[in-house]
């Protein structure tokens, strides 16, 4: 029984009939990590003693009361965990240990989960390949020469390689869904405000959301049930009780209206992925769904809008890394020199590019042309989505235009890297939920993903549709 390969729902079953103990499951995951992660490089930190101690403590409790009893979980390194390093894979936060837990971490612990370690990422979640980590490269478990995607590449790789059943990622412009797609796992970003951002190191505050990366759709729903809900520490969380995200999983897609953008041809989409999409449409129709062609919001504008807003917010959010309060400080004689050298040496190139761009678009004389205009475009995209979802239940499109790419291939071409987010950023711009479901493999053996989006707060429907896709693709079973 390879316990590290079990899903959350399978583990819950095993715990509740008493056939396994948390320490056994944790041991299996730790073994998988020590066997595979030297090569993959998904984890920045694993603390085996703490993990085993926590597992043994849990063994004194009853599994029934805790929805994630004994479930090992990996956490992206931009989510604060008391007593263990939280570096955002940046040199500027080298060795930083937060004195508080993120709200999601508190919720996971209360639910009985065991945090097994911190995963690698693009520095401050800026990137789409996890190559922007100051510490290590993470490889795609399906092919070690390929990127796992990013920025939550460590989390996606850890789940794909069965080192853990679930990992948390964060998604600002696709950073959960894109690596999930590239690694053949399920990645969900909820409605903006669904999951508390308290303790998530901010990249772009109006876009960031934490979400689960899992091997099954059901597991995503189980984790969302635990981490969702209003948080008095995050004023942007949605006040309503979220309900049960598993409720729609078995319902099928009969009567669901699923919109598919008509102009996907405009994008350079991988041929095998196009075939999958066509095939999916047929199967969904067979299952009783109604497929509607729609005009999608202007995706070029969406991605430009995304880069202006995200980087403007980032330039301000990342101002606090200045060498005064924590972690890295460069030697300097004067205050200004300390600031400029600490930030010049502490941030990697991509982060510096984005801070400089964000600073530029907010600076005197440019605000209206860039930031303000981007906010207007954002309002327009939101309104376009409202119209789409007033007539449809879901939107379906690829998560990424194609499969993974070779490590190093795009690192010096920022715009090409940005364009791989073309299908994921609209959901962040509009604040709506979206999920990537693994759909199959290319002939070369690299995973492809299909994305669903739903209207504001309609995660239940989103998961309902995703469960049907999972059933169609049989990815994990076949």
């Amino acid at each position, binding site marked *: 029984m390879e316990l590290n390969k079990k899903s959350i729902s399978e583990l819950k079953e095993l715990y509740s009939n008493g056939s396994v103990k948390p320490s056994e499951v944790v041991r299996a995951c730790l073994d998988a990590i020590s066997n595979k992660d030297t090569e993959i490089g998904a984890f920045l930190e694993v603390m085996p003693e703490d993990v085993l101690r926590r597992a043994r403590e849990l063994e004194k409790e009853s599994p029934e009361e805790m929805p994630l009893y004994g479930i090992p979980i990996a956490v992206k390194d931009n989510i604060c965990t008391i007593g263990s390093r939280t570096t955002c894979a940046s040199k500027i936060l080298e060795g930083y240990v937060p004195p508080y837990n993120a709200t999601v971490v508190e919720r996971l612990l209360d639910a009985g989960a065991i945090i097994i370690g911190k995963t690698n990422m693009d520095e401050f979640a800026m990137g789409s390949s996890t190559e922007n980590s100051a510490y290590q490269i993470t490889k795609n478990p399906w092919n070690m020469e390929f990127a796992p995607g990013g920025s939550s590449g460590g989390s996606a790789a850890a789940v794909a390689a069965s080192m853990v059943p679930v990992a948390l990622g964060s998604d600002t412009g696709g950073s959960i869904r894109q690596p999930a797609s590239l690694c053949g796992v399920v990645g969900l970003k909820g409605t903006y405000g669904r999951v508390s951002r308290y303790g998530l190191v*901010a990249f772009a505050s109006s876009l960031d959301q934490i979400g689960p990366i899992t091997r099954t759709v059901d597991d995503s729903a189980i984790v969302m049930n635990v981490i969702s809900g209003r948080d008095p520490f995050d004023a942007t969380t949605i006040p309503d009780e979220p309900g049960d995200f598993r409720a729609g999983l078995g319902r099928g897609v009969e009567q669901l209206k699923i919109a598919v953008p008509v102009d996907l041809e405009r994008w350079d989409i991988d041929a095998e992925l196009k075939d999958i999409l066509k095939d999916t449409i047929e199967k969904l129709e067979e299952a009783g769904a109604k497929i509607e062609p729609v005009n999608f919001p202007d995706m070029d504008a969406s991605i430009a809008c995304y880069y202006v807003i995200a980087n403007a917010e980032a330039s301000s959010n990342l101002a606090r890394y200045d060498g005064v309060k924590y972690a890295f400080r460069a030697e300097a004689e004067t205050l200004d020199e300390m600031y400029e050298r600490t930030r010049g040496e502490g941030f990697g190139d991509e982060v510096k590019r984005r801070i400089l761009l964000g600073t530029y678009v907010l600076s005197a004389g440019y605000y209206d042309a860039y930031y303000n205009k981007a906010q207007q475009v954002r309002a327009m995209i939101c309104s376009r989505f409202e119209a789409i979802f007033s007539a449809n239940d879901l939107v379906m499109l690829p998560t990424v235009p194609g499969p993974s790419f070779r490590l190093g291939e795009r690192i010096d071409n920022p715009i090409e890297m940005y364009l791989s987010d073309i299908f994921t950023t609209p959901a962040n711009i509009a604040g709506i939920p979206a999920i990537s479901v693994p759909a199959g493999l290319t002939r070369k053996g690299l995973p492809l993903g299909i994305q669903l989006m739903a209207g504001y707060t309609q995660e239940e429907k989103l998961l309902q549709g995703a469960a049907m896709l999972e059933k169609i693709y049989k990815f994990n079973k076949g």
Partner: protein
Amino acid sequence: MNSKNYETVIGLEVHAQLLTETKIFCSCKPEFGADPNTRVCPVCIGLPGALPVLNRESVTMAIMMGLALECDIAAVSEFSRKNYFYPDCPKNYQISMYDKPLCKNGFVEIETDAGPRTIRVERIHLEDDAGKMSHEAGKDSLVDFNRCGVPLIEIVSRPDIRTGHEAVKYLMRVQQILRYLGICDGNLEEGSMRCDVNISLRPAGSTELGTKTEIKNLNSFKAIEKGVEFEVERQRGVIEEGGRVKQVTNLWDAGSGRLVMMRSKEEAHDYRYFPEPDLLPLEVDEEWIAGVRDMIPELPLEKERRFREEYLLSNYDSGVLCAEKSIADYFEIVAESTGLAKKSANWVMREIMGALKNLGCAIKDFPVEPEKIAGLIVLVEDGIISGSAGQDVFAEMIKSGADPKEVVKELGLEQISDSNELEDMVDGIIAAHPEEGERYREGKKNLLGFFVGQVMKESRGKANPELARNIFIKKLGG
């Protein structure tokens, strides 16, 4: 052009720390003079991942000030980020209101030497305070973050002020209102209330504004008056020599009584304001405003007017009594209990305020309750004790806090107003001083004072001096 041909134009920005239980965006409890960095948490110190949540009480207090200054309260206002690097600002941005302030278009009425004036208030907005730095020349600087996140309101006047004297009067009125509302202790020296002054000169009769300069660090009324005078003279000098005033920020150096240039416009910041994405726009409904309106006590001008009408006090007296609400409240209890408004006013202004000054305490810490002072005034007015005995009783009451009647009994100070008893005493004194009696009868009438003095001495101050005087006149004849 001679110097009389210029008009001085002054606008004031007043920052007032609100006396909320907790800081504006977190739960830390501010305390002036606490050990450095002991009143801080992840939010106010800007730790990675921490988020602000707006404190309701701070909004309520800001609305109170808005209503007290007759402002319009915005149904929707918005916080923005003001981006600048300085070590006392842990996030390197301040959360402040920029283009959508909470309160707009109010006014303050002041009394000046030249009569009443109305100073318009442009806006009142909420923001978070910065920490404190201490610098040693040429050495490292030290930072204390305790003050970070203390709620501030910034009250911005229109450029309606014409002299340093008016600036001080305006500031005193603002301070008085803040204290009446109980939302700020208004202490300039401790910095709970701070004032920046903008000054420009223009030819008399002109409606255009000249180039303004700013003075910061004015931490007393005297500094404001001096600083303004200094700057007006400096600008006048520049203009009269044919030069142009440059837009600069000056610091007032109280030690030397001079202005020191801090920065010029060329180095001015580009604050890159943008809406704070961690906080949603602030909505204030009519119900909230109505609730706040009910919390507003009678304000100084109303109270002064009522004192003049109800107690028939002079402008001067009502002004003095209403300077502080607690004094006015004290006076009212005394006046109501005695039914003697003018006498009560005199006692409060002379004895009580004198005693407060000697004791160096505020009226709330004054050991004698107003009801007891009223009792004392009645004892004097009814002739039970003499005026001078009244002073002794008052002194004793301050020491022990005792009831005036008890003090009178204890010290045996009740006046002898029994004519038989006094006649016996007078007979004895006349018999003992035959020479003085003779000279009196010869016309040296001012010896009457000597005889009354003798009776006061013999009675150890208890004789009713008026009565004794009449008996002497009768007995000495002539």
